[in-house]
């Protein structure tokens, strides 16, 4: 990197010892739909985009240590938590979040039903547990980002349309209101009006419907959102105005149907 004005080359103050692990962390939970409707080109596009996006994160000198990634998929194999490319097991005793520098995504397959409710509940439990762990160990962190991507309507285990998702509404509202996490939902593919209704109820003002499966640009914009969070700062209230929505640009750049 060139540093304008003082040159890229030259002496610095030498090798300085810094305490390990004290950098601020940004937990990022990806909750991804891998149900049967994602078979074929959509799941291939998602896999390709995830691989490219994670590689970009690994090369970012700051984000690779700041961003901590975990994934929950729902569809093929039921509801599955991932720790990097491996299925996560509670027996490991560790949280499924891994530094972006070590995040290599799994090769996802599509199939099965859309257990969105169960997946999101599990994702939020992991987010809260990880926050508790960070707090307990004295690590500082940004408000976690939870990112839901779906192309269908929530179902039960038999594939029947289910209203169970409605039980998520109060938890999501409370989590966002109390700064527990920031939550965004993106509908892709041929999401029906009912599917859109689900997202708009889950996260009023924080969802978007995109035509097709533009995963690559979606994940690139997710990186932009992460950078916005990392460069921003919260503050004590009063004499203030609302903090800008870090996803503002995302929604401006990718309007519905684009």
């Amino acid at each position, binding site marked *: 990197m060139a540093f304008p004005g003082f*040159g890229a080359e030259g*002496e*610095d*103050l*030498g090798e300085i010892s810094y305490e390990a692990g004290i*950098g601020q962390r940004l937990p990022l939970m990806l909750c991804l739909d891998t149900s049967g409707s994602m078979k074929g080109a959509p799941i291939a596009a998602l896999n390709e985009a995830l691989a490219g996006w994670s590689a970009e994160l690994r090369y970012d000198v700051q984000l690779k*240590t700041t961003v901590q990634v975990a994934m929950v998929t729902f569809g093929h194999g039921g509801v599955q938590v991932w720790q990097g490319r491996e299925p996560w097991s509670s027996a490991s005793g560790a949280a499924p979040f891994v530094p972006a520098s070590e995040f290599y995504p799994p090769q996802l397959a599509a199939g099965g039903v859309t257990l969105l409710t169960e997946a999101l509940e599990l994702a939020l439990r992991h987010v809260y547990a990880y926050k508790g762990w960070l707090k307990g160990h004295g690590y500082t962190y940004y408000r976690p980002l939870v990112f839901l991507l779906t192309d269908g309507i929530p179902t039960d285990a038999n594939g029947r349309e289910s209203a169970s998702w409605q039980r998520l509404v109060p938890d999501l509202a409370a989590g966002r209101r109390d*700064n527990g996490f920031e939550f965004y939902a993106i509908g892709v593919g041929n999401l029906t009006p009912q599917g859109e209704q689900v997202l708009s109820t889950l996260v009023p003002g924080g969802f978007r419907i995109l035509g097709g499966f533009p995963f690559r640009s979606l994940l690139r914009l997710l990186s932009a959102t992460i950078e916005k969070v990392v*460069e921003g700062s919260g503050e004590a209230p009063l004499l203030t105005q609302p*903090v800008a929505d870090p996803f503002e640009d995302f929604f401006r750049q990718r309007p519905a149907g684009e």
Partner: protein
Amino acid sequence: MWRVRGFSVQGYAHLTEGIPCQDAYRQAVVGSSAVLAVADGAGSRSRSAEGAALLVTITTEVLTGMLNAPGEPPDGRLLERRLGQAYERIRGQFLKQATLLAGEGRAGDFAATLVAAVVTNGLLGIIQVGDGFVVVRAAGRQGMTYHLLSRPEVSGQHSNETLFVTSAAAEKAETISVADPGITGILLSTDGLMPAALAYEQGRPETVNEDFVQRVLGHLDKDGSDPRPILRTMLSDGVVQLTGDDLTMLAAVRA
């Protein structure tokens, strides 16, 4: 006499996004005394960079005026009281000018934290609002020792929440005075350098990362030293991996 040097660079996250640095610093050397101020503009506020610049300008003017005022040199308690009064003037002027520039009820657009110091007659006085910090180097029987004087208070659930001079809860600032003629170096910083310059216990900054502070102040001890090694260190991988925040410090060493 004090030799004072300021360093301010965009944080890595700002560099990659092309966002200007929202920190500011300003200093004044008045005879054998010095006034130092650093401010960190709130990332979420539209005019916080202007706010930080305005705040350090007003602060150095008010504190220089305080040092130049006639009267007996203060002891520690009196200095703290004067700093408290000075802060009220600083905040009053700042809110007034910010309101003039931004409009009625919009002073919050200029939100910024503040750490300021005066060093005079063997006394060091500090004003603090928000999460900046002050480290000193003191010469003693056991050589140089390093002390964290103002421990940054981080409020709220997440680590990027703090208090600004524009906040309603910032009517009064924390003031500290230290009587130590052995102080040979002072480093004021915004919170960006906290993970590099401080040492942590249970996730909280409790003491000084002497390796970092020693090298910075030691470099400035050399008369006519090239400032670029300090800037390169501020943007080194080691620091960038700790923080993407804007990085600003004002360092003073006895010349």
